[in-house]
């Protein structure tokens, strides 16, 4: 309790003076005020007014300079604003208001002309808050913490509070919580009659796991709330890869199903790893998930889900790249870490396009494709005339091993390449009509169909 007692030692004298008498007036009845006046107990921030009357009970006029109060929580309203001459038998009325701003005891010196008395009162919160504990009321102190216990993810717990208006005034009490994990069931304002009570329900429904806290505000009362969210054990993830033919330069889909329907919310992560056959020095930037452009993605599950969601989608597209090796798809969800592998075997050079161009210097042949073994060693070119006859000097073999080795050493693009080969021609180059291309790596020799210039 906060005490605010004015220094009143000098005011021990009675409030009855030779020429004036101070009365309190209620329902038209005057009651002399002797030394002190109790303004009662009020709720914080509420106001109570008392009417006073200063009467000249002498035979001569009395000068009243002012009517004042000297302490916090008290004030004079409608008192004389200037010097008043109070003739014999005459009186003046004024009102003293008691409006404390916090809980505690208050007093002040009321001075009305020559009359001086002490006014005092006390302030209470006006509200008593009880927790309805299975039918038993338990009053909550100012430092009380209401624990909602532990609930499963997606679950909830409720507590009922009873609010009692201990003041003699009607109150309209605002009710709110400051945490997304708690909510008030009912209107935001609770009307309370004098000495009346009302109730409200607070629901704890955690949006995330772990210990959660908040505050319940009832008027000026603040009550701490506490709860815990016990995450439901996430179900075991099951990786499902849809890749009809495990090979380079393919796009597949990966779906993560759940062994049982999810009981709560959770999030997890999927990683796409790659282990090349030819050693750890080779990277393949094309081994990625299409939706993220990277080798990882996050996902979420909601209660009832049987498959995880990547944003709004239930699967991710991924690329196998153009390097022989092993794809490692790893899913982490809760306490589970699941992994599946996809082996991409080494294969002959894949030639996806052969383009031919006549240039001033002769002929140009561009070969686009990939060598997932990164061991291409030889390219062979055979030119043909318009009649389909092979042109001298016949099959031209080109040792490309060193050129490709140099290229692959610095490339992080897997085994894909665009080979540009030029052939200076002596004579009439227009005789050359078409070309066939072979490329050889450690697996086999690949052949591209004849392409015309």
């Amino acid at each position, binding site marked *: 309790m906060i005490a605010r007692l004015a220094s009143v030692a000098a005011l021990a004298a009675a409030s009855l003076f030779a020429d004036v008498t101070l009365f309190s007036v209620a329902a038209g009845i005057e009651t002399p005020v002797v030394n002190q006046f109790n303004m009662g107990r009020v709720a914080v921030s509420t106001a109570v007014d008392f009417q006073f009357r200063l009467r000249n009970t002498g035979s001569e006029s009395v000068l009243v300079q002012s009517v004042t109060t000297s302490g916090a929580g008290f004030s004079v309203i409608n008192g004389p604003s200037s010097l008043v001459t109070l003739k014999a038998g005459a009186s003046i009325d004024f009102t003293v208001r008691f409006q404390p701003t916090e809980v505690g005891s208050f007093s002040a010196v009321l001075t009305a002309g020559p009359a001086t008395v002490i006014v005092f009162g006390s302030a209470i919160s006006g509200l008593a808050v009880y927790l309805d504990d299975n039918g038993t009321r338990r009053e909550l102190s100012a430092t009380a913490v209401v624990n909602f216990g532990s609930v499963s993810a997606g679950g909830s717990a409720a507590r009922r509070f009873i609010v009692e208006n201990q003041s003699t005034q009607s109150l309209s009490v605002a009710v709110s919580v400051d945490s997304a994990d708690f909510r008030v069931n009912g209107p935001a304002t609770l009307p309370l009659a004098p000495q009346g009570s009302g109730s409200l329900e607070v629901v704890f429904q955690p949006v995330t796991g772990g210990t959660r806290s908040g505050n319940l505000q009832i008027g000026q009362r603040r009550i701490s709330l506490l709860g815990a969210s016990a995450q439901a054990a996430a179900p075991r993830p099951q990786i499902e890869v849809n890749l009809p033919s495990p090979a380079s330069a*393919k796009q597949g889909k990966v779906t993560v199903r759940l062994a049982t329907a999810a009981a709560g919310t959770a999030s997890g992560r999927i990683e796409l790893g790659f282990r090349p056959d030819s050693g750890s020095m080779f990277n393949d930037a094309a081994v990625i998930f299409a939706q993220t*452009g990277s080798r990882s993605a996050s996902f979420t599950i909601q209660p009832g889900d049987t498959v995880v969601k990547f944003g709004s989608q239930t699967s991710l597209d991924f690329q196998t790249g153009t390097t022989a090796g092993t794809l490692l798809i790893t899913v982490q969800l809760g306490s589970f870490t699941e992994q599946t592998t996809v082996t991409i075997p080494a294969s002959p050079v894949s030639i996806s396009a052969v383009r031919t161009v006549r240039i001033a210097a002769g002929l140009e042949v561009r070969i686009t494709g990939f060598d997932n073994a990164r061991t291409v060693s030889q390219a062979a070119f055979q030119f043909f005339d318009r009649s389909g006859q092979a042109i001298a000097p016949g099959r031209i073999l080109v040792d490309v091993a060193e*050129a490709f080795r140099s290229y692959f050493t610095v490339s992080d693009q897997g085994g894909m390449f*665009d080979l540009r080969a030029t052939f200076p021609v002596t004579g009439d180059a227009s005789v050359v009509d078409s070309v066939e291309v072979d490329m050889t790596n450690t697996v086999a020799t690949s052949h591209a169909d004849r392409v015309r210039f």
Partner: protein
Amino acid sequence: MKSFLLILVCAMEVWAQPGIARPLLGIVRDSRGAVRPVYGVPGNFVVGASLWDGAQSAAFSGYSGMIKSASELVIVDRRGQKVRSWPAPDGPALFGFDNTGAAALVYFPGPRILWRVGGDSPETIDTTRVDGDVLSLSAGGHHHIRIAVRRDGALHLLRLSASGDGLSDEVVCDDALAAGFADSEVLAVATRDGLLTRAADGSESLVPLEQPATSIDRMGEGWLLVGQPDGAQPIAWHYASQQQDLFRVPASAETQE
């Protein structure tokens, strides 16, 4: 007299270009307006660093490309390097290439302006004969212009002379969601059933598509970029292959948060 012919040994270098490089498959504009190269082979793409930011529209034939920023039209070469540019009206644009893949036509839907861009400066072509919302255009043989328009819900194929005179107007289908010229002769149309290609001789083929397309643009030689709804990654359509393969174009790691 029989000509003498000798093919010499292969030279792996041409001028300053390396003999072996990563294959540039096309150029695309991402959802943030960055124009990026796409390297790769069918089924295996790597999206490179931005060549151009703030693009409102872009298309690439494999031989040349056109990029439209808020105030400029830029012509790029087969490597995505700027060749020339002109001031242009604000807003997106549609692009047409000729049968060699060279930049040929630009249409600005807002002001309904059509440019021919083959010369030193753009040449405005009369569009009073173009009735409907233009979806795509190309420069055909004999300087003819082919324009796909949507009118009263139907997709029409217009053929105009070099000066803009109307030569023909043919209904292609009634439920086109988007359209784009695959080359100067072949029109690709997105319908609710999938992707339809319609050759100059009227022959058609249909490729099923899981989700309806929102746009069709040229992204490279033999490749079309098919927009997808709800922010999904676009589809690369290898229309020039016998299988007419569809692949998902990966996001650039740079575009992720």
